[in-house]
């Protein structure tokens, strides 16, 4: 590195003219200017991860809370299940007095669906109970990544920002390290005991909240069992006498038989996500999970045989014409869930929570509707190999410009929302105001139409207890979901960087962005498997191998999360 290039990093860069001169000089001698600026020594842009002893210093203490004993305890990384409703009179109190200071907080959050009006009874009741005047800035969840980048680049960052893990692309992780406050001084170690409900959040979820060496994010704890489930129409399967296929080949054979395009019936929707699980492909959610130590070498998911096999099988489904034509169109084709409930497809894959969501939605519209998740099978019909997903993948941050009082109000809000099942706080957060948003019928809380519209989306990410599934009005579904997680959890392995939040170096952070498009092209027969192999070798030479060494060093220096 030349002295010229070195001088262009650091404080001298502030001067417009000097930096131009330095850049011109640097370009003239052809030095790697980019490399010079990567390090920078700015605390805010810290790359890498934090684990082991370093993490132990900043992680909050864990104090279990047991208000209601779960009807189904957690096992194999599953959520806990609550199948019984708790009568209003027996609800416990976990937050004894109004915790907030009465201050104001602006919260930007993704919202899937139509956000309610800002002054609805649910928000008002929440504000009153928490003692914080929250103004919601609900943004469309589907295009949240586009909005997020612009908001973080502006000087008007809302006090609190919710960031889903799948939006942590490109430079967003470094933006988070630069723009959001360190919560360590309020939560590390025993300090969290001021917020008992947050103290009951599992440590592995907190570990995910460490961004750039500091505890910045309030995590939404999640089961580490894969969240994607293959869901099928149990009622239609029974009507036609089908049994659930037990291997990829069986599935293909069944799909060909079941597809009847003439009567607008296709066997399945896009099954790519299912294929990844069936063939044991490393998890595709969080970038760090793409890597796993195999033997003595770190291997990326796109380099594996399983990846190609999964794509090839999905391609066969498309080629056989058993996939709904609208699914071929991707996003423009509309929502897969609607095709499923309309009976145009028999199988689709989605977050396992759709099992409850669609059942609850269809209960009033189609009395015969019945669905279920089926168990993953391995490539040969035996046991599958599943890879764990991150134990928290949605985070809530508070701006580093917020006052101390605002941070405390924010934590009070999170502590309130993290109240476990069986508390008054939980009922208010999850069901809203009794009599307005829900009514109790035969001992079961049932949301009114107003409740369905308003108690939905907001307060979902600002603090949560350990993973739970609680649908007392549909106890069978609750049981089915938890047990599915437990069965799948038995086959689930953790890859090398499980549980860690990794900030990749900016120069490589876009490297793998286009694989998803390529996958979609391959399964639809527009590109070949050999194109994937070509893309992988391009990826290696454009920085994939460098990234491998970088991750290797991270592993050697930090160890894994466990």
């Amino acid at each position, binding site marked *: 590195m030349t002295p010229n290039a070195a001088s*262009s*990093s650091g404080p001298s*860069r*502030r001067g*417009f003219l000097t*930096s*131009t001169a*330095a*850049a*011109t000089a*640097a*370009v003239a001698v052809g030095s790697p*200017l*980019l490399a*010079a*600026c990567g390090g920078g020594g700015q605390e805010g842009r810290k790359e890498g991860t934090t684990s082991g002893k370093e993490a132990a210093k900043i992680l909050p203490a864990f104090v279990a809370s047991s208000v209601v004993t779960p009807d189904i305890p957690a096992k194999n990384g599953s959520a806990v299940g609550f199948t019984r409703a708790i009568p209003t009179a027996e609800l416990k109190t976990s937050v004894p007095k109004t915790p907030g200071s009465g201050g104001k907080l602006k919260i930007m959050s993704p919202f899937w669906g139509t956000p309610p009006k800002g002054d609805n009874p649910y928000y008002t009741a929440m504000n009153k109970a928490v003692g914080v005047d929250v103004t919601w800035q609900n943004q469309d969840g589907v295009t949240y*990544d*586009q909005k997020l*980048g*612009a908001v*973080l*680049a*502006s*000087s008007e960052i809302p006090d609190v920002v919710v960031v889903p893990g799948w939006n942590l*692309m*490109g*430079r*967003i992780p*470094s*933006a988070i390290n*630069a*723009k959001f406050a360190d919560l360590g001084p309020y939560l590390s170690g025993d300090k969290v005991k001021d917020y008992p409900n947050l103290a009951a959040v599992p440590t592995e979820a907190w570990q995910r909240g460490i961004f750039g060496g500091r505890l910045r994010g309030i995590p939404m704890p999640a089961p580490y069992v894969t969240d994607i489930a293959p869901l099928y129409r149990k009622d239609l399967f029974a009507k036609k006498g089908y049994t659930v296929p037990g291997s990829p080949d069986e599935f293909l054979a069944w799909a060909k038989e079941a597809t009847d*395009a*003439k009567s*607008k019936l296709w066997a399945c929707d896009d099954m790519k996500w299912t294929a990844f699980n069936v063939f044991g492909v490393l998890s595709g959610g969080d970038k760090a999970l793409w890597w796993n130590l195999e033997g003595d070498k770190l291997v990326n998911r796109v380099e594996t045989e399983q990846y190609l096999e999964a794509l090839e099988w999905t391609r066969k489904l498309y080629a056989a014409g058993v996939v*709904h*034509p*609208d699914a*071929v*169109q*991707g*996003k*423009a*084709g*509309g929502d897969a869930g609607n095709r499923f409930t309309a009976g*145009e497809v028999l199988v689709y894959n989605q977050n396992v929570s759709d099992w409850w969501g669609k059942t609850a939605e269809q209960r009033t519209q189609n009395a015969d509707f019945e669905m279920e998740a089926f168990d993953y099978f391995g490539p040969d019909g035996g046991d599958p190999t599943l890879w764990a997903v991150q134990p928290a993948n949605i985070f809530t941050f508070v701006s580093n410009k917020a006052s101390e009082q605002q941070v405390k109000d924010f934590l009070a809000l999170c502590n309130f929302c993290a109240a476990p099942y069986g508390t008054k706080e939980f009922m208010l957060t999850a069901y809203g105001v009794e009599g307005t948003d829900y009514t109790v019928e035969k001992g079961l809380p049932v949301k009114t139409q107003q409740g369905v519209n308003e108690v939905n989306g907001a307060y979902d990410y600002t603090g949560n207890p350990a993973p739970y599934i609680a649908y007392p009005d549909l106890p069978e579904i609750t049981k089915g979901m938890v047990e599915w997680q437990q069965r799948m959890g038995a086959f689930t392995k953790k890859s090398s960087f499980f549980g860690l939040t990794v900030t990749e170096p*900016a120069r490589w952070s*876009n490297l793998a*962005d*286009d694989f998803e*498009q390529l996958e*979609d*092209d391959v399964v*639809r027969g*527009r*590109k070949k498997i050999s194109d994937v192999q070509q893309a992988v070798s391009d990826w290696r030479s454009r920085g994939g191998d460098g990234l491998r060494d970088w991750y290797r060093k991270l592993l050697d220096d930090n160890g894994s999360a466990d």
Partner: protein
Amino acid sequence: MSHSTVPRGTTEAQTSPQDDGGTTGTTKGPAPSGKGGRGPRAKKAGRLAFRIRWRRDRALILMTVPALLLVLVFNYVPILGNVVAFQDYDPYLSENGFVAIFESPWTGFEQFERIFADSAFWHAVRNTFVLFLLQLVLYFPVPILLALLINSVVRPRVRAVAQAVMYLPHFFSWVLVVTVFMQIFGGAGIIAQTLRRHGYEGFDLMTNPEIFKYLVTAETVWKDAGWGIIVFLAALSSVSNDLYEAAAMDGAGRWRRMWHVTLPALRPVVALLLVLRVGDALTVGFEQLLLQRQAVGVDASEVLDTYVWWNGIRNQDFSYAAAAGLVKGVVGLGLVLTANKVAHLMGEQGVYKK
């Protein structure tokens, strides 16, 4: 036949003196209301007395100020942001994205080198030009034809209804347009399902990358061709009826009248729009293509605008995207200058004159 020869002679005799009067009046005829005499001197006086002109046009100038300000703030100031194309810009480096421009390191032409070495960029350029040429041939003439058609309808009510029906799709969003096409031509659309019910093989026009460019053009025609006729209708309405009557008197049939009267009247407008269209050649639709990206894949659907969006907004590679946008702007400027020159050579006004 013999009847028509007589009027022809008379009309010629009547119109030619008028024409002469029109063109020569200013040079040798007596100046009507002193206008002619003012010509040369007014020009000189205008140059000198800015104050007088200001006093005269003050109100008009003041009225344009708000619009000028808007243009300045939203069209010209952002141009300065293009400097990030010469940087490794990171909007999160400092307090806000604007200040970050001053703190991001300069990299000279590195982003441009990256772009020119990127096969995906050239692919997007190729797709853009293919789509542009296709739309020029298949889309551009449609509004003209429609305008002629509407213009030939005499009954006002039929005309109004036809116009309204043609304008309507312009107000639909692209999501709706794509959905309508999907419901008709998609793999589970009306046509495919009807075919299947009658024992034929269904088809799917929406996911075929080979014909995607025609599909996109068809969608554009359906959505915007009706709207495009407005300009041409305006041009047509300014054609004096005398000319048609005169041509009819001379025995010109429908086709001859269109060829010799209507089309020459439209020529300047067509030339103008053509020049503008060529200048816009690299803008072939954004939302429409982005929406159908997954349906046909990147190879068929990536154009310059979606490429810039994908790299800039999706991947947050702002400098790279800015550089690609800059290249697009420069090429577009070159195209519009060339097209304007060609228009001048053909004797048309084009967008501007020297």
